[in-house]
Each structure stands twice: as C-alpha cells, then as structure tokens.
C-alpha cells in the first residue's frame, strides 16, 4: 500500500473524459513520474490530488486519509506540498520573507493573529529560514526582491519553501518547463540531492524525458486519461505502447 493511493478516479468535463478509471499507487520514499502526451490528463490528475478538482467517482487517499473535499491549505497541512508549473512565490516579498512564511505556517497552523509582535524578533524562524537558504546556496540572495530573480532561482526558492515544511509528499508539475538548459540541470541536481538527503516521496509530472529518466524510479504513462503502463524507467524506454502513444501508430 503506497503513501498516495488513487482508486478508480473518473472525471468528465462535458463530453470530454479527462480521466477514466485512473488507478495509481505511489510508494513511500520513491520518485514516481507521470508522463504522457499533451491532453493525456496529467494536469487534471494533479488538480485532483491537491483538492482543486473533485472527481466524479473514485477515491484519493494520502497515508490512509481521504483528501477529497478538503481545502488546499488542509491538504498542505496533511503533508503534501506542491510545486507549480510557473513558480508561485511571493513576488513582492524578499527571499528571506518568502522562506519565513511557510515556516510560520508550519509552526502556527492555518491562522494565527500575531499583529503586534515584531517579525524581526522571530529569531528561531529566521534562523531556520536562513538554514534552508544556505542548503539551497541562496544565502547571499536573502535580501533580494524575489520577483527579480531568474526562473531557475525562483524554482529553487519555491522548492525550498515547500521543503522547509518537511512535507512527506512533494508534487511537482513540470518543474523545468520553460527553463534554460543550465537551469534545468540545476533543478535536476537539486531534486536528486533532496531525494538522497531526506525521507520524502516525490511525484513528478513532466514533459522533458531527460528530467524524467534522470530522476524517476517508477513511471506511469497516461494517455487519453487512462494509465497505459506503469514500470521502471528502463522498461518504459523500449515499451511499444509508449512509443505508440507518443509517436503515433506508424512509428
């Protein structure tokens, strides 16, 4: 039984069957990639996992608890962190402040009214935030305006913000989309480092095969809303069904 269990999930948008009978099990402490051609239902599946969409039928459970019908912040508090396709960071805040907010959330829960304390007196939080920044090699950028950084640095910051909460499952939605080659490689290295250093499960949705094959331990191929095969990267590479799904029958 995996840490994340998706059972018989169906989702229709009008006449379009976006997800049809999806079953998926992500093993704890593994890196599981979900790949598929455009329109395969990858993003829909992700939105179901994080509570943005509610499936028509089926169940999604994390560590034995259903995530369906919960609000995004509740799902996050269960231990699921999400990295978006375009980095979602607090652009108007400094890098250090960006890093402090998830640590506040981890300590104080969904809401706490500390309106007259001084945030620069929160030594423990700042220390922890700086520690994470150091592990990301971003300590020298702590007073930067986060919106002015490169795509790669924003991604790095976003991943750091997620990690600072010690999530059990990290969901990544095309983490290298729109990135320069060097930034892509940096991101891959960062994810490898995370995998080696922590007890964490990583589920990754990706287009870039280079990224998928450098990281994944298991791969699920989605096509037209249904899982086609699930196997190790080596077996996926030569799988005829996968070639067919990606390249069309004639290939």
């Amino acid at each position, binding site marked *: 039984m995996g840490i994340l269990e998706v059972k018989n999930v169906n989702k229709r948008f009008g006449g379009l069957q976006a997800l049809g009978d999806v079953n998926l099990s992500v093993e704890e402490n593994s890196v599981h990639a979900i790949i598929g051609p455009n329109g395969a239902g990858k993003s829909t599946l992700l939105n179901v996992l994080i509570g943005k969409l509610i499936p028509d039928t089926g169940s999604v459970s994390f560590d034995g608890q259903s995530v369906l019908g919960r609000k995004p912040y509740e799902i996050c*508090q269960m231990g699921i962190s999400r990295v978006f396709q375009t980095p979602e960071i*607090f652009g108007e805040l400094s890098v250090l*402040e960006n890093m402090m907010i998830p640590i506040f959330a981890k300590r104080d829960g*969904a*809401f706490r009214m500390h309106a007259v304390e001084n945030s620069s007196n929160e030594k423990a939080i700042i220390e922890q935030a700086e520690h994470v920044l150091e592990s990301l090699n971003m300590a020298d950028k702590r007073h930067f*305006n986060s919106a002015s950084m490169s795509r790669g640095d924003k991604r790095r910051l976003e991943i750091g913000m997620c990690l600072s909460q010690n999530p059990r499952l990290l969901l990544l939605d095309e983490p290298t989309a729109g990135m320069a080659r060097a930034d892509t490689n940096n991101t891959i290295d960062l994810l490898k480092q995370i995998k080696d250093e922590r007890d964490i499960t990583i589920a990754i949705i990706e287009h870039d095969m280079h990224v998928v094959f450098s990281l994944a331990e298991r791969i699920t191929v989605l096509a037209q809303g249904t899982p086609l095969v699930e196997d190790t990267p080596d077996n996926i590479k030569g799988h005829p069904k996968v070639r067919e799904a990606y390249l069309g029958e004639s290939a």
Partner: protein
Amino acid sequence: MLGLHKKDFNLLLIVVVLAMLAPFILNPFPENSGLAQFNAGYPDLMQKFVIFGIFAIGFNILFGLTGYLSFGHAAFLGIGSYSCVWMFKLLGYSVVPGILLSIVTSGIFAWLIGIISLRRSGIYFSILTLAFAQMSFALCYSVLSNPKFNLTNGETGLQVYNNDPQYFRGEGSPNVPHFFGMEMNATHKMELGGWLFQFNTGYYLCAVIMVLAFYLSIRIFRSPFGMMLRAIKSNNTRMNYTGLNARPYTLAAFVISGMYAGLAGGLLSAVDPLAGAERMQWTASGEVVLMTILGGAGTLIGPVLGSGLIKYFENIFSKINDNVLHSWFSFMPDGIEDLMVTLIHPFVGKGWHLTLGVLFMLIVIFLPGGLVEGGQRIKRLISGKKAADETEDEATQSTPAE
C-alpha cells in the same frame, strides 16, 4: 525603541513632532498678508487633517497590505459618528464612551460585512462593499428615521437636544463635548508678531489618537501578521498551498481597518456633535481611496500625506474666488488680467475638484508610488544615489504632513 526599528522610530518621531507643532507649521504666513488665505492652521481644518489621516491609515491596512480595495469604508465612518452622538444623547457629553463605542460598533459591522464581502476578491469585492455602504446610507438617510423608531434623524442629522436624557451628565459639566472637563472646542490663541497661532483641545486629542493609531499601524506592518497580509496580496495561490488559510487574515485586516474608520467617525462627532448620513455616501468612500493612492498605498506615511493634501485642497483651494484672483493679477493690464482670471477660474473655488483630478492623474501616471515615491526620488536626487533596491516602504518623508 517601543519595539520599532530605528528607521520606523524616526518616522514616528517626525509624525509626533509635526502633529504637535502643526499649529505653527501650518500657519507660515502672517495674519494680514495676502498669503494668509493659504494658512491651514485653524482648528476646524487641523482636526480634519488628523481625523481623515486616521481614516486613511486604517484604509491602508486593508488596501495597502492585502490589496483588497474596499469601496464602502465610509459606512464605518458613519456608523462611528452615529454611535458617538448616541452616547452623547444617552450618557452625557464626555467623549470617551462615545469614541470607544464607535470603535466597537464599526468593528461589529465590519465583521458582518467582511464575512460576506470577502467571499469574493478583486472587483467583485469592491462592488459588494460599495453595495453594503449604499445600503447603510439608505438606511440612515430614510429607513431608520421614521417617527416610531428614529435612530438616525434622517436628513437633519443626528444631534443632541436639550430634552435628551444624558443620564450620567454631572452637575456643572460643560454643555459641549469634553474630555474630562476640557471642552473640545476650547481654543487658546497666541499672537506672536503678525502671526496668530491657535491651539485647540479637540485638535490635540485627535492628534494624540492619530499618533497612537499610526504607531499601531507601524507595528502591524512589521508584524508576522502584516507579512502574511502582504503575502496574500502578492500571491494568494501560494498562500493557500503553504497551508495558510487566507480568509481569517483578510477578515482580520478588514475588521481592523473598519475599526480605524469607526474611530475617525467617532472623532468627527466628538469635535462637532452632529452626524449626518452624507458621511456614508459613496463619494466619501471614494475620497479615502484617493487619499491612500495619492499618498502611496502600502507605505506607512503615505495615507497621512494624501489625506492632508486632499483636505487642504478641499478647504483652501475652494475658497479662492474671482475677487481673490482679480486681486492677484491686478498688476497686469486689464485685458490680460481678465484672461488670466478666466483661465484659472475653472480650477479654483467650486472647481477645486478639477485641480485635484489633474493632480491625481499626474501622480498616478508619473509617480505610481504616490507622494512617498516622489519624496524618495527627491531624496535620491539630493544624495546623488542611483535608484537602488529601495523598493521597501520605509518612507522617510521630510516634507511636512500638512
């Protein structure tokens, strides 16, 4: 000092000094000089400066930090005013219970309106708040002032009559609003050379409260709570996926800023015990938006500067009539004098809104950060520094907060 960083503390100090010395600073011209009409150091106007300063500081906690643009904040101002006058009618002329009640009632109303309005964001939130404010206006203007149940006294406005109970009014206590016996409208006049300086009790009470309100707003800006509010403005999606529930944060900001508005409304009644429904009209709500943007939304001192500027225009520019203009240009030949007066006429007197509108457009286009950004640019020009990474809102304006 006082839990503030040096920069913030200096800013607070500047505000304290300006507020305390305002009767001098705002009266730069001798009494019988031609420029005396530009003096703003008379009690009525000085009171408006600080009271609307409080209103704008509170509005900025909502709009500047969370980005939620409320178009109905005047409703809380009006609710505060009515609450305060009712305390005068029922208890007596001491301003303390009135001001306290105005904060409490506006807080309750802000909570109720906030719960509903904050279900939406962006323009829909603005429209919802506007709708609530217009409903409040209609209620106060007509619905709640029928002979059977007269809560607001309709068009006439709520005021204190001789046959009101005033249960706790002490023997021999003043027959006007007072703060522990000090009459709000008492003014001490000091003549110094050609100058006339006026020190008004009501003004100083409001100024002290404004300083306290300003101090509290600095604390909120620098607190983790303030950081969360800025995070909501910056990226609500990330906020939710960080495990934080944005709703209670925005609601708390809305209630706090509603209470600031109520406090301002209560003070308006405390210095002049008459509350009318027109205080709740949408133009009044729009005015506080203008004040905040003009001064610099999201900055500490900006709203105070903005409210000062607008109230100055409203009271000083509107007094310049054709006679004044003719006397200014009397040194010119007749034809040119008439031409100048005709040209300037639309922008002064009753047309002061036109000047304000032009000024507002210029500031929004060329100084999106408001007067505070202007001040920072001037500062940088003087110190010769290039546009550094000073995007933070530490505004150290040295121009007087008129």
